[in-house]
């Protein structure tokens, strides 16, 4: 007791100095968002898993034991190796090899790199399209709004993957066969990105209509600021909050879409496989006993999507003042 009393003055002063030096960082760690993060073990696990996969994907050349893209290093003799714990396992290949002798672990790391890159890029494209159109729609109103929203509703009445397939098909038709491998990434990003803008547009339109009638916007009108600048400088920063939440959940959806398209064979080329491509390759051998080729990429995809989704759900709740 006596000791505790003696030491109390010191810890009281310590955080003060830290807060003064930390500034924004300290405010974040004192804030509600950090608090709700800390108190949700599932979210912490999801964040750790997500960050691990992101880092592994980002530093794939350093992390992965083999380079699956370098055809010179592949040996057909290594193909269809089972994981190490199986009877024929090879210690070089922790979870086995695929039909071309590529190390599964390395392919999955490189594959998640491809999946995440396409996911991020298409989410970014969706955000640019959706936020832009939503802002115009909500700010201008009238015929422009009616037109954009009808297009959005028509698109919404079709399954997203169907839209993506449609755009994919059209784009592939545009390019000659010999170029298709080069443009595969761009085609995927375009088709997934364009198929996902509607949700952003509807959310941003709604918030824009709320912000548009607020007095700070009218004040800018009275000063005579150009409407385009009002939309960009005043309204845009105030409608971006919900976009972050949608984007997180959309990232998981985009990764799934990419995997679906690649699984259907209209995705990235087999020489630079993504998770979806790997599952498709593995699918061919699933019934001939080489289960690891499909199961491990599938599990990686499931874990990645689940972790990102959990993060998105938490973010939505943490940023929603009504649920606090």
């Amino acid at each position, binding site marked *: 007791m006596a000791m505790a009393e003696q030491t109390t003055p010191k810890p009281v002063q310590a955080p003060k100095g830290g807060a003064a030096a930390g500034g924004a960082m300290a405010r974040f760690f004192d804030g509600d968002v950090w608090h709700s993060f800390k108190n949700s073990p599932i979210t912490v696990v999801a964040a750790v898993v997500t960050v691990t996969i992101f880092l592994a994907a980002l530093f794939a050349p350093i992390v992965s034991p083999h380079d699956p893209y370098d055809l010179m290093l592949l040996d057909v003799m290594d193909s269809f190796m089972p994981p190490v714990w199986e009877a024929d396992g090879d210690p070089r290949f922790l979870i086995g090899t695929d039909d071309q002798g590529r190390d599964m672990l390395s392919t999955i790391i490189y594959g998640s790199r491809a999946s995440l890159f396409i996911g991020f890029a298409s989410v970014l494209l969706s955000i640019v399209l959706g936020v832009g159109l939503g802002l115009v729609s909500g700010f201008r109103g009238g015929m422009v709004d009616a037109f954009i929203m009808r297009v959005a509703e028509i698109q919404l009445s079709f399954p997203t993957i169907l839209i993506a397939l449609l755009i994919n098909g059209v784009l592939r038709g545009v390019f000659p066969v010999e170029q298709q491998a080069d443009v595969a990434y761009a085609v995927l990003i375009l088709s997934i990105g364009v198929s996902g803008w509607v949700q952003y547009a509807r959310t941003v339109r709604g918030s824009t209509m709320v912000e548009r009638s607020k*007095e700070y916007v*009218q*004040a800018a009108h*009275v*000063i*005579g*600021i150009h409407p385009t600048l009002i939309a960009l400088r005043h309204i845009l920063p*105030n409608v971006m909050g919900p976009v972050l939440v949608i984007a997180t959940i959309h990232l998981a959806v985009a990764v799934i879409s990419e995997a679906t398209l690649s699984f259907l064979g209209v995705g990235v080329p087999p020489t630079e496989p993504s998770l979806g491509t790997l599952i498709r390759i593995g699918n061919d051998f699933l019934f001939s006993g080489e289960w690891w080729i499909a199961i491990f990429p599938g599990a990686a995809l499931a874990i990645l999507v689940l972790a990102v989704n959990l993060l998105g759900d938490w973010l939505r709740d943490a940023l929603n003042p009504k649920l606090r």
Partner: protein
Amino acid sequence: MSEVMRTEASLSDTTMLEVSNLKRYFDVSRPFLNRVLEGAPRQILKAVNGIDFKIKKGETFSLVGESGCGKSTVARLIVGLYAPTEGKIEFEGRNIGGLSRREMAPLRRRLQMIFQDPYASLNPRWRVRDIIAEPLRAFDLESDEVGIERRVGELLSFVKLTPADGEKFPHEFSGGQRQRISIARALASQPDFLVCDEPTSALDVSVQAQILNLMKDLQREFELTYLFISHNLAVVYHISDRVGVMYLGQLAEVAPATTLFRDPRHPYTRMLLDTIPDLDMTGRQRMPVAGEVPNPITPPSGCSFHPRCPFATDRCKSEAPLPRDLGSEVFVACHGVEENRIPRGPVIDAPPALR
């Protein structure tokens, strides 16, 4: 509130703003398809339905009335947020009603507005210095960033804040402080005419007085002309030189503030004044507030006040009264006053709550 102050204000006779037969209708009909399929009629809301007034240079003209009488619409019409459906708004003799953004540009600097809700009138994501500097940048009033910074500091001290407050965000301030920031922004472009749309109605009573006194000081210092919109009679009495009483998009009575409060002529004005609480507990007879403001989409026939007016006659029900000049700057739109059948006499002798 002394008589001396009012006469001291030495109002010039130059008209700064003249509004004539100003109308603003809003189409509140159901969408086109509903009208066709359900046979719903077109519905027009006559928010402002033909009003006339003049504001002289250096004076404070107030518009009072219950919620929904169209006073805020008048404010928005004058600063150009709405275009008038009909009528003229003349600023120093030039019609500014319905000008395009470009045509309005040279006048914007001189015509600014203070808004009602201090929590909505400042962009929550901007620092105060950027909020106040926005007009400076828009009108190119300072040559460089150093000049802008100096001017923002100056404006903040005009409204009794410190230049260091410029670094903060709006949420770090109280309602009254936010309203000061809003005033500083309105003053940034050195305007001549300020439209104040209920600038104190969202504030605590103690803070209201501070803001009103600040506005009076600023008016004297910068020779400002105010159009002051409010539903609070005490506030209006405190700040106005002349008052217009609005009812359902029209002016019922326009009179100098002292005259209006001492000798209200229109039955509606008298009803409004009778709602002011009486701290002396004189137990005098009051005209009870009866009824509600009718729906402006379907206003009553004749005088729009007749369903609530104890003096209404058949003429009031059929014929709309026009504003009549009763001399000494008093204008009243009322058949009863014209026919001299409304009892006169001070309803209240300088309302105690306002003293």
